[in-house]
Every structure is written in C-alpha cells, then in structure tokens.
C-alpha cells in the first residue's frame, strides 16, 4: 500500500465531499443553477469537471438544469444536478419525466427552511414528502440522507449506483447542516469502491426499449448507436410508443413502482443503535440522527432504555423494519426538522404504539436535549 493511499484523508464540507464522491462514481455531466445552500456543489463541479474532461454547464434555471441532465443521461453519461427547496420545486415535473423515461440521474436537494423562500441559509428537513410525492402520478423514487461529509462522499457513489441499477432518479436529501459542516472525510482507494453501470442492450434488431428484465428494469440504449428508439412522457408500451388505454397504464405504471417496491429490501439501508432492548425507539435521519444518537445515550444514563433507528435511505421507506421494531418497543419518537413528515410513515407502521413527534420547523439543528425531552414523554 502506498503512503499516499494511507493519506487520503481530507477535511472538507459535505457539499465538497459529495462532488468528489460523484466524480468517483463516474459522473461526467453536471447542469445546475446557483441556489443556497447547494451552490458550492456547482462551484466545485465548475472547477473539477474540466480537469477530468467532464461537462459543467450553468443553465438558465432549475428546469433547464434537470432537462439537460436527462438529455445527457441518454448519451450514457452519468449526470446530476444539485439544488435546494425552491429549485427542487421547479424540477418536479422532470422528476416525473425521469421516472417515465426510466432515465438514471442524481438530484441533490440541500434542504433549507421552507415553504417558499423560507430560510435560505438555515437547515431543515422539510422536503422529505416532496421527494417522494412532488411530481404528479403514482410512482416510486429512491432517496438517501447522509449525516456527515464522509457519508456525503459515499452516498454520492451509492446514489449513482442505485440510479444506474434501477433506472430511476435518486435524490440525495441532504440538509444545510451536513452540506456546510467540515469534517474528516476518508477517500477510499479505488479498489474499495464499487461502481455500477446501467445495462446496455446488445441486440439492436429485437430491442424493445421498455421490455423489463427479471428485476423489472429494462436495459437502456445509448443515443446515436443506431437503436432508433423512441421515448415519450406519454404512457407507453414496450416499444416506447404511446398507449392510451387503462390496460397499458396499469401494466406500465405498476411496473415503474414495482421495480422499486419489489426490490425495496435490497435498496433500503437502516442503522440501528441499542434497539435490541429498547423501550423507546427514536427514528431520525440526516443531521437530526446525530443529535438523536446523543439523546438516546443521555436517556440510557437516566435509566431509560432508548434506541435509535437511523434512516440512511428514506425512500423506499423501510416499513418492514419499522413494524418489527414496533412489536418490541413501547413507543416511538420521530425527530425531524419539519412539522411531521416521516412521523406519519412511522405511525403507519407503529402497530398502535404511541408515536411522538420531536418537531423542529428549521433554522437550527435539533439539540439532544430537546429530543431527550420527547424520549422522557414516550417512556
């Protein structure tokens, strides 16, 4: 092992770590529009992309940004954009298009206080439901929530891998605190990193652009290679041609959701701390999961058997895990920086057990003390 490999430790912010992770994952196309608190991601790509022969373009708005990302993805390029709440709202129609065209892409939403312009420079976790339901129609996406700069690096790779594997937009739901937090980031050696790529069809003559494999994911043609494929945001059949019938809608839209639903247990990632003997389970994610970890330790010092379920992937929601925990605990505390979003998902899986919301509307990260207060209530 070279000396340099041992020294691959950096002290960087979450936003910068995320960019370096994306580059490791093979991202070579970034289109974006400046918005606080995600702007450093665009700035870092503007600096880094020309160095590695990739493309950075600053578009006229967030709608143009995500449209360009989807266009680039069809050339086979791993593509991404980053934004915050207001820009994420503008991107919503294209989230639906990405789902419908099964176009791999990564969208980073560095969450700030909302609604509207809200708290541009301050943290929140209030776009959780928007990430899942923001575009019209019934569909599923994948969302991941890093809680440190080191994870921002790793999750960037994970997001691309999932996106390529399932041909679905993957949303990195970061919060301002993690985005602007400086911490130690260990850059893994290349041989420690797994990079996954979309499956490309081999048979041009019999290629059906939307005929799925056994995982319900179709292989994806690359533009310009002679497949002569057609893609449309209209409901379509396996040839990619519009099909405006109830049967076609049922078959196609179900598959789009089922390719995530039926593979959910392969996708979701949850960390559990002290859950085995816990009477109170705290559910949290992102920056709030760090305060929650401290809160359960403080609770245990007081003799309260508290544990933590930390959602690494938020969508698909790990309902099975939550239901298993619900059998064992007396109650849940959901700590999130909004007025109740994941709260309702936990309640859905709580098997009648008490669920208390440790809410925080955004502005500053939740403290361990305030979460501890809710743990005491739940005991």
């Amino acid at each position, binding site marked *: 092992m070279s000396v340099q490999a041992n020294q691959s430790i950096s002290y960087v912010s979450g936003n910068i770590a995320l960019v370096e992770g994306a580059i490791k994952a093979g991202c*070579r*196309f970034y289109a974006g529009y400046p918005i606080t608190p995600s702007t450093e991601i665009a700035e870092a790509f503007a600096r880094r992309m020309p160095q590695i022969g*990739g493309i950075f373009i600053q578009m006229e708005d967030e709608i143009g940004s995500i449209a360009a990302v989807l*266009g*680039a993805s069809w*050339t086979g390029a791993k593509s991404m954009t980053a934004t915050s709440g207001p820009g994420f709202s503008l991107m919503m129609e294209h989230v639906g*298009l990405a789902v419908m065209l099964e176009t791999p892409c990564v969208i980073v939403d560095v969450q700030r206080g909302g609604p509207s312009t809200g708290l541009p420079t301050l943290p929140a976790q209030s776009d959780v439901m928007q990430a899942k339901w923001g575009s019209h129609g019934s569909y599923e996406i994948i969302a991941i929530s890093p809680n440190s700069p080191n994870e921002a690096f790793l999750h960037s790779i994970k997001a691309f891998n999932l996106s390529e594997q399932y041909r679905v937009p993957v949303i990195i739901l970061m919060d301002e605190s993690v985005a602007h937090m400086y911490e130690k980031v260990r850059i893994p050696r290349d041989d420690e990193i797994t990079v996954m790529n979309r499956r490309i069809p081999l048979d041009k003559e019999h290629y059906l652009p939307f005929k799925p494999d056994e995982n319900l994911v179709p292989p994806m043609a690359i533009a310009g290679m002679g497949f*002569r494929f057609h893609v449309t945001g209209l409901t379509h059949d396996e040839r990619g041609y519009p099909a405006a019938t109830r049967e076609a809608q049922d078959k196609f839209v179900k598959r789009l959701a089922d390719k995530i639903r039926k593979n959910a247990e392969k996708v979701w990632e949850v960390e559990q701390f002290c859950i085995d003997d816990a009477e109170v389970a705290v559910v949290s994610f992102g920056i709030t999961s760090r305060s929650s970890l401290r809160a359960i330790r403080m609770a245990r010092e007081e003799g309260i058997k508290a544990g933590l379920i930390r959602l690494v992937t938020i969508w698909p929601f790990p309902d099975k895990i939550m239901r298993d925990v619900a059998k064992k605990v007396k109650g849940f505390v959901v700590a999130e920086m909004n007025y109740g979003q994941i709260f309702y998902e936990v309640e859905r899986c709580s098997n009648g057990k008490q669920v208390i919301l440790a809410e925080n509307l955004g502005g500053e990260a939740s403290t361990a003390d305030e979460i501890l207060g809710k743990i005491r209530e739940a005991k």
Partner: protein
Amino acid sequence: MLEQEYDAFLGKYFRIERFPHIWCPGCGLGTATQALIRAIDKSGIDPNTIMIVSGIGCTGRAAGYLNFDSFHVLHGRAIPFAVGLKLANPKLNVIVFSGDGDLFAIGGNHFIHAARRNNDILVICVNNFNYGMTGGQLGPTSPLDSSTTTSPYGNIEPSFNLPWLAASSGATYVARWTVLHMRQLINTILEALQRKGFRFIEILAPCPVNFGRRNDLPEGIDELKMYQKYSTVVNFADPRIAEIKWESEIIVGKFVDAEKPTYEERMTNLIEKVKGGRSG
C-alpha cells in the same frame, strides 16, 4: 419518385407502423416533416446520429413518427434536453422540432439562452398561430386581433416576431418559410444541417381545424392561398421588419447566416486548456 420508391423512402424515415398519425386534414405538419426528412436524406448525414427532440403539442408528436432516436419530452423543455444531449455527445446532430406555443410561451426562456450560448442545435418551429392540440387557444405567435377560443373578442396581445427574437438572441442561422415553399424549405433545412451553432427555422403551417376556421381560413388551402398572396421572398432582410400582421406582407427567406464559435467548441477548448482533452 415512383409510388414504391416513395413508400420505401417514407419507411426509411417514418415509423410507418404508427400511422395513421393524429394530425388533422389540412394540417401543415405532414409537409413540414416531409421537408425535414428530405433535407436529412439529401444531407448524407448518418441517420443514426440524428436526434429528434420535441416538446408537447401537435408538432411535438413528430418525434414519435420520425424514425430516428427521438425524444418526446416535457412541454417547453425540448431545448434544454437537447442542450444536454449535444453537450454530452458532440458527435450527435440534434434537431429540436416543436411548436410555437411550446418553444416560445412556456419554453421561451430556454430558447433565448440556448441562442445566447450558441448551443450547437437546430431548432425548427412549426408556427400555426395557436395551441392546436388543446383546441385552438391564443399563443405567443397569434397575430394581433386574431380570434381564438381564449381571445373570442379578438387578440389584444402583440405577437412575437420569431426571426428577430432568434437573431437578437444570438442565433447563427435564421430563416422563415411556409409549407407552401416546399423546395426552398428543404434547401434551407439542408443548409442549416450543414451549418453549426444555434440555428433557427420558422415554418408557417396551417391549422384549419382550430385556427383557420375562426379566422376566415376554414380549409388548409385557404391559409396556403394567404401565404401565396402575402409572402415576399427577401434574402437577408432586417429581421425587425418580419413581424406577422393580418393582411400584410409576410417576409420569408434567410435572415441570418453567420459563423461564430459554438458553446461546444468553447467547451472543448476550455477542457483542452485545463486538462488536455475530453474524456471518453
């Protein structure tokens, strides 16, 4: 062309298994798409490198009928999607083929910025003066005083002069024809395919079912006669005089044919400077 040859020609460039198409009798879109494929055929460009990107609307359906890699994307967003395609693979020949409402109302911002950057794409706008697919509403190119379902007492909004908008935003090639000018239109598309940079062609096309019948042009042929009566061919006319008004001259021809470095060329140079070549 013999009938058999003609069928083979159509079969090469159209997804004929999708016919009959959805366009109405008297619509100009059949002629406009014919002009496009004839120009592509003449150009000798490898059809596998041709990308058709369309937005939403009657013209937007062209992507579904043309036998190239084709993308029927969101309303108003064909241009930024095309920008991404071209930038990520500069070997592609990217053509945006969409309507006036799609490109200039909801998509207007993307148009001016792609023109400003000189993104290397060809944008063809089929202008039928209204939103046809939704049943004939007012659009940004509906002439002043025209009658539509959302301007039942006459349009009080001045319309966009598209050649001037394109030229002033930085387009390197700007032309306008009507579907009556088939030969000139084919030659213009062919010429535009051989140029680089942000190229714009406006094609006036009748929409008798939704626009014409509310404006004393009840049949497709009536609007063609209107084109014949009012259009004047002027090459390199000042695009400022190209506004379309009722019962007055319609300037057709080429307005701009200039050479400027494209965004993609500047990008390649930037990467050369910083790194020494593009990846892949």
